[in-house]
């Protein structure tokens, strides 16, 4: 069927802030959808609160609303825009849930909006556990024995039948939030209670455990003519029991015969038809009993998902783009396959390589939480690797993670006592693959490892082949050959060549080989080059070479034929950011995408290198050429030598490419933009101090120490509290505020391994200073400020974890002028060419420089959206040689409206971890609120974070003594607005003296009820609790943790509380409106 002409305007809902289980894959899918539908001539209205997305760039939709993704806000947008259709399946669970809410409440009917892609009954059937089970039974498919519970009582009755271990799956939560495996009744009750609270409809599926069964996924697409195709099959290396987002996965399926695979395919087709997803993609999960082959259906997502993003990158088939086209009426056979250009999209991709996806976790930031991997997803990112063997792909994937491994390494696990291995193998954990390596290296049999891990012996055997080959490489006679070749005579060339070739085909990196032979990575590389053992590049083409590929999407392998034919055009290579992690995520990918788009428009051929399958940068049509490769020196150099670009951009992908900058430059790679040496000057404490002294700027008083003994007098001289951190860190890793000597010693002994090469930096902590972020762009002569962001919280909380406002809302003109002047001189001193971010602290009218990063910062997308100027695009063009004057960006912009950025935290995934905010970044994502009124902008940002500020009710106030004075005004305003106050004894007394009554609660341990009881009873609506910062007072932390667990907004600083109170005032006035970016930009 041709496309529908009865719709003109389509509303697309994004997925909001990056959170665990819902990351930039939905920007990838949403961006594809926007592009595909715009291309078809539809008018696109988009809503997404996440400013770091490509989809919210004003040119991807006609009307771009950066507003909270909640039903009431989306209703306002619908009322204003009157779209004829809503596409609910591309913005993850968030978009799907909001769409369901709008459909069920009659809003869609009222405004005559049609759900396209999936209709309400289909979504309900797939998402509601009882309906889904019923549907499966109807079509004769088995599901694990299970039942639905709406209360603890029902759940307790169910588990009598189902038995332990039992799986708890809350309905309508994403990434399995609140789910888990209970092995005993105590655990079970706890999980049931938590799960009921988290499910928006208070519904749980209690399921028979199929732990240890093999897990598979199929990505299915259906069109309006009922054609169904399977895009990709995925096998999880980790057996059932570990969330698929936390599993190492492989595409395609490796261990099913065709008979079994076709049975699964038939089931998938039956399922998508029975559920009734009209058009688009779905993800269906199966479990298979390894002993009998019995297949059961686990679940279905009636929308694009993380797995579909992976499947798209793994096959070259753009699921989201095709899904969008199907939603407006096209059939699969009417859409061409972009990659071959000649054949239709109605086929099943076949691949001739192996894809391995490996998750990346961030447990180091959430110490104290249980690190066991379960059915609830905990990873924050993933890397994907492509190879011609599983071994090659696995090792490439492991080095793509950038967690210090160069492949299936030995790691420090060598010293682990053998007796501890069984438990490390049987309890799923983030290092399990390395425990398997350790077990294999010590001779544990595949069968025994399989018994502990339930991992299919096929995968274990492949890992054993890696281990065996490594052993062979280190055998004395082999060593001798290689040593001789390397060191002396260049003899044994053929033998060395053969070994190196096989090592490469097994995925070994030069670094790993260097470690085996006690030589440097460079030595191995030179040796390889001499012997002609080079990486070759193959094409991802959807068809296993049956047709010629039009799209240059490549991966490396060691083979006989290289398919890359470099052009002689002027080209620029952009290094991406690798797997998402806390502190380095979508914001950097956004910058890389912008660089590609801008340079392409300037006539360059753009080459993208990245290993993150969730991103827009790894979409094959973002750049001219895409290399899906690890971001290591070796892999990047391979591509560089092949393509010989005239410039390489390292300052957009976060710390990952920056870390390679010096080595790449030494290898002759032309790094464009700010030089790696100047970047190093900003990072090295000593060199940076010289820069500041030169231009007369101040830093907080500081010192460095290499031991606890050295640290104590330095800290004492600076005066507590001090900020301590290791040198060279990302996202404030292991950075802390230390309040006394005892804590300092504890930090020096446990948190870091200080050494003369890696000293600990100790800074005076500027208490109650205002922190300011400045993003600027410089062409080497002219520096233009992009934006000045005033943090709401005082300095000391990582900038990624702070709320901030652009333009500043309390700074005076003189301060702003000074900040600008300082920034200009810093850019000049560091010879910045491209982007620069500076963090300042203002205390007692003095401006201190906290940090300078001469590279793209996390706030670039936010600032670009706030001022309507694509800073990353401009910076890329500046790096390629344009001046800001040529680019017509010479005037600084101060918008007439306010943009507020607010962070989103993953604490609900990590119970037991420290929820206190500090210099170490813990947020996974951010949202933006825009309004002409700063309080309304703040209210919108809070709402977009999922904290709906109350407009009435009870407020609990408990502040440290220093804040008692400041709280009076806030409390007074709250009572004026009709709130009732709750306070502990001390605070209550202060409030009473100032004429305010409050309901008294006991301090913890002094009697009942305490605030804990109120929180548990949901008898409090807002909490203002400023902690003393004293780690010896765990009660303060507990309040925060409980408030987070019960979704009660909590503010832990006075400025934060003040902003919240003003925002509540704005909400009470009830004049919240929605405005698209395009209209805001008219005001500039």
């Amino acid at each position, binding site marked *: 069927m041709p496309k529908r002409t009865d719709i003109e305007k389509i509303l697309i809902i994004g997925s909001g802030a990056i959170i665990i289980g819902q990351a930039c894959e939905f920007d990838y899918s949403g961006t594809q959808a926007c592009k595909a539908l715009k291309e078809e001539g539809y008018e696109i209205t988009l809503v997404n609160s996440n400013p770091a997305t490509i989809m919210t760039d004003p040119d991807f939709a006609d009307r771009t609303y950066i507003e909270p993704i909640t039903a009431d806000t989306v209703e306002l947008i619908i009322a204003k825009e009157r779209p004829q259709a809503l596409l609910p399946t591309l913005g993850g669970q968030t978009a799907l849930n909001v769409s369901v809410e709008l459909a069920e409440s009659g809003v869609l009917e009222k405004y005559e909006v049609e759900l396209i892609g999936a209709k309400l009954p289909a979504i309900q059937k797939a998402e509601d556990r009882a309906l889904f089970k019923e549907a499966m039974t109807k079509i004769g498919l088995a599901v694990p024995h299970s039942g639905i519970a709406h209360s603890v009582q029902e759940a307790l009755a169910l588990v009598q039948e189902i038995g332990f271990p039992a799986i708890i799956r809350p309905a309508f939560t994403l990434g399995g939030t609140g789910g888990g495996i209970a092995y005993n009744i105590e655990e079970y009750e706890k999980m049931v209670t938590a799960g009921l609270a988290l499910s928006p409809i208070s519904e749980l599926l209690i399921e028979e455990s199929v732990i240890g069964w093999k897990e598979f996924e199929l990505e299915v697409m259906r069109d309006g003519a009922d054609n169904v195709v399977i895009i990709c099959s995925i096998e999880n290396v980790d057996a059932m029991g570990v969330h698929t987002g936390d599993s190492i996965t492989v595409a*395609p399926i490796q261990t099913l015969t065709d008979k079994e695979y076709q049975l699964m395919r038939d089931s998938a087709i039956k399922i998508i038809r029975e559920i009734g997803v009209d058009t688009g993609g779905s993800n269906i999960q199966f479990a298979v009993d390894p002993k*009998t*082959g019995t297949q059961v259906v686990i679940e279905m997502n009636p929308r694009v998902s993380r797995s579909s993003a992976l499947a798209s990158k793994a096959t070259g088939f753009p699921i989201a783009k095709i899904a969008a086209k199907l939603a407006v009426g096209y059939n699969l056979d009417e859409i061409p396959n972009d990659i071959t250009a000649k054949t239709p999209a*109605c086929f099943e991709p*076949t691949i001739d390589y192996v894809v391995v996806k490996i998750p990346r976790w961030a447990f180091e930031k959430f110490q104290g939480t249980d690190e066991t991997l379960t059915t609830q997803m905990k990873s924050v990112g993933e890397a994907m690797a492509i190879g011609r063997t599983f071994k090659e792909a696995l090792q490439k994937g492991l080095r793509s993670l950038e967690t210090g491994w160069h492949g299936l390494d030995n790691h420090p696990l060598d010293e682990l006592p053998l007796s501890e291995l069984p438990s490390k193998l049987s309890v799923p954990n983030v290092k399990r693959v390395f425990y398997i390596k350790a077990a294999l290296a010590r001779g544990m049999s*595949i069968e025994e490892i399989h018994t502990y891990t339930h991992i299919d012996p096929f995968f274990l055997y492949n890992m054993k082949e890696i281990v065996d080959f490594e052993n062979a490489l280190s055998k004395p006679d082999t060593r001798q050959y290689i040593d001789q070749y390397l060191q002396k005579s260049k003899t044994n060339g053929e033998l060395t060549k053969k070994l190196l070739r096989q090592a490469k085909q097994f995925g070994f990196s030069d670094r790993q080989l260097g470690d085996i032979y006690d030589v440097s990575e460079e030595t191995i590389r030179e040796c390889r080059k001499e012997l002609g053992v080079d990486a070759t590049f193959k094409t991802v083409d959807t*068809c296993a*070479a049956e047709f010629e590929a039009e799209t240059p999407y490549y991966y490396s392998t060691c083979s006989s034929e290289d398919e890359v034919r470099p052009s002689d055009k002027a080209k620029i290579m952009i290094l991406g950011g690798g797997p998402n992690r806390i502190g380095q995520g979508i914001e950097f990918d956004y910058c890389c995408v912008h660089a590609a788009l801008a340079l392409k428009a300037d006539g360059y051929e753009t080459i993208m290198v990245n290993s993150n399958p969730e991103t827009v940068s790894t979409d094959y049509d973002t750049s001219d050429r895409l290399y899906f490769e690890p971001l290591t020196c070796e892999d990047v150099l391979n591509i560089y030598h092949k393509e010989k670009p005239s410039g390489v951009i390292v300052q957009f992908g976060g710390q990952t490419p920056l870390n390679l900058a010096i080595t790449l430059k030494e290898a002759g790679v032309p790094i464009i933009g700010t030089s790696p040496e100047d970047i190093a000057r900003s990072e090295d404490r000593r060199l940076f101090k010289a820069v500041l002294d030169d231009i007369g700027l101040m830093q907080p008083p500081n010192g460095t120490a290499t031991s606890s003994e050295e640290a104590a007098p330095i800290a004492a001289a600076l005066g507590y509290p001090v900020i301590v951190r290791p040198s060279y860190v990302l996202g404030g890793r292991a950075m802390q505020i230390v309040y006394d000597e005892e804590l300092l010693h504890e930090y020096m002994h446990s948190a870091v391994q200080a050494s003369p090469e890696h000293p600990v930096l100790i800074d005076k902590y500027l208490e109650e200073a205002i922190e300011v972020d400045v993003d600027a762009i410089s062409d080497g002569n002219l520096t233009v400020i992009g934006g000045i962001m005033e943090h709401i919280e005082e300095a000391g909380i990582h900038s990624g974890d702070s709320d901030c406002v652009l333009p500043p809302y309390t700074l005076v003109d003189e301060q702003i002028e000074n900040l600008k002047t300082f920034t200009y001189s810093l850019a000049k001193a560091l010879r910045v060419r491209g982007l620069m971010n500076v963090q300042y602290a203002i205390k007692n009218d003095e401006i201190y420089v906290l940090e300078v990063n001469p590279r793209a910062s996390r706030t670039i997308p936010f600032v670009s959206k706030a001022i309507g100027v694509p800073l990353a695009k401009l910076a890329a063009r500046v790096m390629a040689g344009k001046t800001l004057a040529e680019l017509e960006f010479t005037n600084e912009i101060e918008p007439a409206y306010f943009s507020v950025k607010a962070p989103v935290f993953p604490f609900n995934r990590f119970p037991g971890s420290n929820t206190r905010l500090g210099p170490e970044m813990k947020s996974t994502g951010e949202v933006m609120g825009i309004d002409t009124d700063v309080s309304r902008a703040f209210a919108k940002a809070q709402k977009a974070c999922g904290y709906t500020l109350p407009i009435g009710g009870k407020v609990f106030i408990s502040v440290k003594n220093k804040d008692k004075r400041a709280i009076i005004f806030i409390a007074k305003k709250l009572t004026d607005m009709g709130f009732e106050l709750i306070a502990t004894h001390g605070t209550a007394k202060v409030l009473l003296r100032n004429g305010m009554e409050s309901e008294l609660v006991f301090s913890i341990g002094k009697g009942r009820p305490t605030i804990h009881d109120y929180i548990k009873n949901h008898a409090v609506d807002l909490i203002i609790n400023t902690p003393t910062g004293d780690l010896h007072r765990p009660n303060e932390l507990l309040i925060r943790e409980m408030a987070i667990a019960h979704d009660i907004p909590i503010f832990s600083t006075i400025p934060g509380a003040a902003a919240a109170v003003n925002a509540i005032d704005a909400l009470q006035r009830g004049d919240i409106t929605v405005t698209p970016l395009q209209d805001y930009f008219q005001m500039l």
Partner: protein
Amino acid sequence: MKAILALADGTGFEGEQFGATGETVGEVVFNTSMTGYQEVLTDPSYKGQIVTMTYPLIGNYGCNEADVESIGPQVEGFVVREYSAYHSNWRSKWSLDAYLAEHDIIGIQGIDTRALTRRLRVHGVMNGCLSTEDLNPESLVTKAKAWHGLVGWDLVQRVTCPSSYAWQQPEANNSHAKYRVVALDFGIKYNILRQLTEHGCEVQVVPAKTTAEEILAAEPDGVFLSNGPGDPMPVDYAIQTIRTLIGKKPLFGICLGHQLLGLALGGKTFKLKFGHRGANQPVKHLETDRVEITAQNHGFCVDIDSLPNSVDVTHVNLNDDTLEGIQHREHPIFSVQYHPEASPGPHDASYLFSRFTEMME
């Protein structure tokens, strides 16, 4: 042990042997299915061919007794990127290595199968020689060149059954079979027989040279024309047989059976550059406008423009617009180029078996 695959164009690929040792010649073709290597190996349509799997890891799930399409492996040689020495599957009985060794099929692994596939795609399928004995590439190229190739060679004679037999299926209950079918065996795949049985047919399999008179004497409800290897042109006796059967019995042809029917009706066949071999070929059913994902294995094709007016085109390949199915305008006769019995491959087109039984009603 070292093994070399040499192509008639002079290209050589050096790899490691698995399965049997020795030397073999054949037409080198590629198959793009990611699963189903045992079905591929045992499909008689691959007679005369050295098959390369484009999926790089082969042998992962071993081999078993059930997933066979004929009495044993039929290919002349087997080429993979990485043979998996470990086989993991609850039904696995032998390693692929042992299976091939047992049936005297030479395997070669460790070569750049994608480079080989690209060569075949660009230059067309070509003759090759695979050896573990003669490791001189030039000599192997000469042997490959010297081989006569598939065109004009009646390969059916190498795979058809020696004498007529009744298909017995242990798990099937044949007592309520409604239709009596004679299947002309040009190299029939077991799954066709299994499918016919499941659709209520009692099947008598007869040698390819069985005459129309002999078939009609058995008074079947319908005649099935099977798949098979190689060029249809030299199988003139079968073309003659089919021509006589037209109008007398319902006919259903698959693959070679379809080509022979096409020739019998007056059409022409030609050799495709590199054929269709895989499990992901999109075929459009023109009657319903629905697309079927199909299993295919053919190097020859009925020329869509050569068809007589007596037939309608029912199915076309969406990748290259070649003919995939025809139906006679007057008589209950139809055929498809692809494999509705799948094995390996998707089951999207299994409705065709019902269509055949409906014709026999």
